[in-house]
């Protein structure tokens, strides 16, 4: 399954035996889109964007935090929340352990406070490398607490989402997190709170169909797949092949679903600009 690819911590995913011999693992990367080989160090420097085709590699939560927050500094909150196996679902408990070991994370989202361009924000960053970024009770609770914190402290709120959808092993409890997070957002936004939502690759199902779609501004990284139903399910339903660009950020932009597709290199600058405009409380400037 493709999921296995993303559970690895290293980003050197080498497809064939031949290339395996050619590229020392960890030192070099081969772009999954265009095949260009580049030094891992160079790739890191380029914010994990392929210098050949502009493909945006997936980031885990900590990589994203490092490149988004000032000095990469996060005051993490609710880091002690962990998933239990509330429904006694076959295989869930052991899968959770495996996911923790593979990703080094406790669950699929990191939340906290930090600054972007000097503006304090409450931020949540999801990680696809933990359980495909699925939303169970813990993700729902951490998202909700982050929203409530932003409400209380009157701070702007930013979520970077990536998710395969609901955490099936928590069934109805995971579904209800959609209502819980959306209700918290309704309260926050009703009081004038600013919420910027950034979709990253991929964001589907229950996360896409709840808090992530409710931004005052909805952005996406180039090429990010964002939608409700997955491609395979849709193809089976309509019995047709979907175009290659289906559900990409560019496709969704064309269909009016996004405010902007923002390349990774420009993300921090755009966020800072927006935060600045929303922080403005003064008088009209003197225009000469």
């Amino acid at each position, binding site marked *: 399954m493709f999921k296995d690819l993303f559970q690895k911590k290293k980003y050197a995913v080498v497809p064939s035996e031949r290339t395996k011999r050619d590229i020392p693992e960890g030192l070099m990367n081969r772009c999954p889109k265009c095949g260009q080989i580049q030094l891992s160090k160079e790739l890191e420097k380029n914010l994990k964007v392929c210098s050949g085709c502009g493909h945006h590699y997936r980031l885990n939560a900590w990589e994203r935090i490092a490149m988004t927050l000032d000095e990469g500094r996060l005051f993490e909150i609710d880091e002690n929340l*962990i998933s239990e196996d509330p429904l006694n679902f076959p295989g869930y408990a052991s899968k959770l352990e495996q996911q923790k070991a593979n990703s080094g994370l406790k669950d699929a989202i990191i939340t906290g406070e930090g600054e972007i361009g000097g503006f304090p924000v409450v931020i949540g960053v999801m990680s696809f490398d933990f359980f495909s970024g699925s939303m169970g009770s813990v993700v729902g609770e951490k998202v909700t607490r982050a929203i409530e914190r932003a409400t209380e402290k009157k701070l702007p709120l930013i979520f970077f989402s990536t998710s395969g959808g609901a955490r099936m092993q928590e069934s109805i409890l995971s579904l209800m997190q959609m209502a819980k997070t959306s*209700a918290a957002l309704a309260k926050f936004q009703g009081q004038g709170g600013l919420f910027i939502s950034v979709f990253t690759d991929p964001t589907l199902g229950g996360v896409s169909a709840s808090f992530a779609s409710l931004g005052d501004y909805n952005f996406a990284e180039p090429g990010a797949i964002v939608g409700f139903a997955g491609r395979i399910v849709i193809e089976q339903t309509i019995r047709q092949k979907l175009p290659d660009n289906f559900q990409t950020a560019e496709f969704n932009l064309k269909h009016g679903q996004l405010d902007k597709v923002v390349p990774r290199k420009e993300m921090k600058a755009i966020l800072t600009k927006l935060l600045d405009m929303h922080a403005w409380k003064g008088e009209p400037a003197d225009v000469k």
Partner: protein
Amino acid sequence: MSSELPFERPLAELRKKIDELKQFGAEKQIDFTDEISRLEERYKQLESEVYEGLSAAQIMHMARHHQRPTSLDYIPLIFTDFIELHGDRVFADDLAIVGGLAKLNGVPVTIVGHQRGKDTKDNIQRFFGSPHPEGFRKALRFMQQANKFGRPIITFIDTKGAYPGDTAEERNQSEAIARNLSEMAIFGVPILCVVIGEGGSGGALALGVGNRVLMLENAIYSAISPNGAASILWKDASKADQAAEAMKITAKDLLELGVIEEIIPEPQGGAHRDKATQAESIKEALWRNLQELSKLTPDELREDRYRKFRKVGRFGTAELE
């Protein structure tokens, strides 16, 4: 199509035997009264054996029964003066959603429900009860109207889920669902939801953010259909029965998990055996809950709803190193 489910077959067979014996007795003018009453006794016993303690998978089949009453079956039996309204004002009239105004015991209310089809042709028109974004936006329009005019909202949930199609995605299925969730959360009128059949995923929840969520005894409600879960977990959609058991999808499970407030009992053998009686018990439950909620102010209703959803979820806390 026969109406009995596989686990009901022993009952159907016994019923057939009783009928045959009656007919035979009438034809040959033989008195089988004693035998028949003994068999009727046996039938009653067997009936309670079959229907008591149904497994989750059996309940799932009951919830999906092809004769199971739909929103439009219940509406005329529960309400009076129903005026059906149509369309999202923007794109289309999605027939997977029905709704409008009606009176419940004389009180004007807004009704919104999923609507499955009665036959193949009807099902094609109604996308098997799976709404497109315009369906959710139609529902939202009716609910916003109710909120504006201070009318209670009553929803009937009965869908396998939001329609997974290319045009649904193009029109932003995710946003349509998410918008309903956040708007329903802050309406200042009572919202009552009844899961009457299958409550499938986000498409169900988009009509499900109520102060009280009631569920028929043999309805189901889950984040993903048992078939979907089985195909993801075990790469085998035919293991849906097995998944159903693991997923906690029955009304009893959901009551224990604090997701629903009340179970509405069904006539023995399921809602389809006696629509009128079923409608009566739904009406009783709606009226009772509505009277309780009508005592609350708009702010209290919002707060009540927020608290209900805020507390859902189970997790632990780790010791930090």
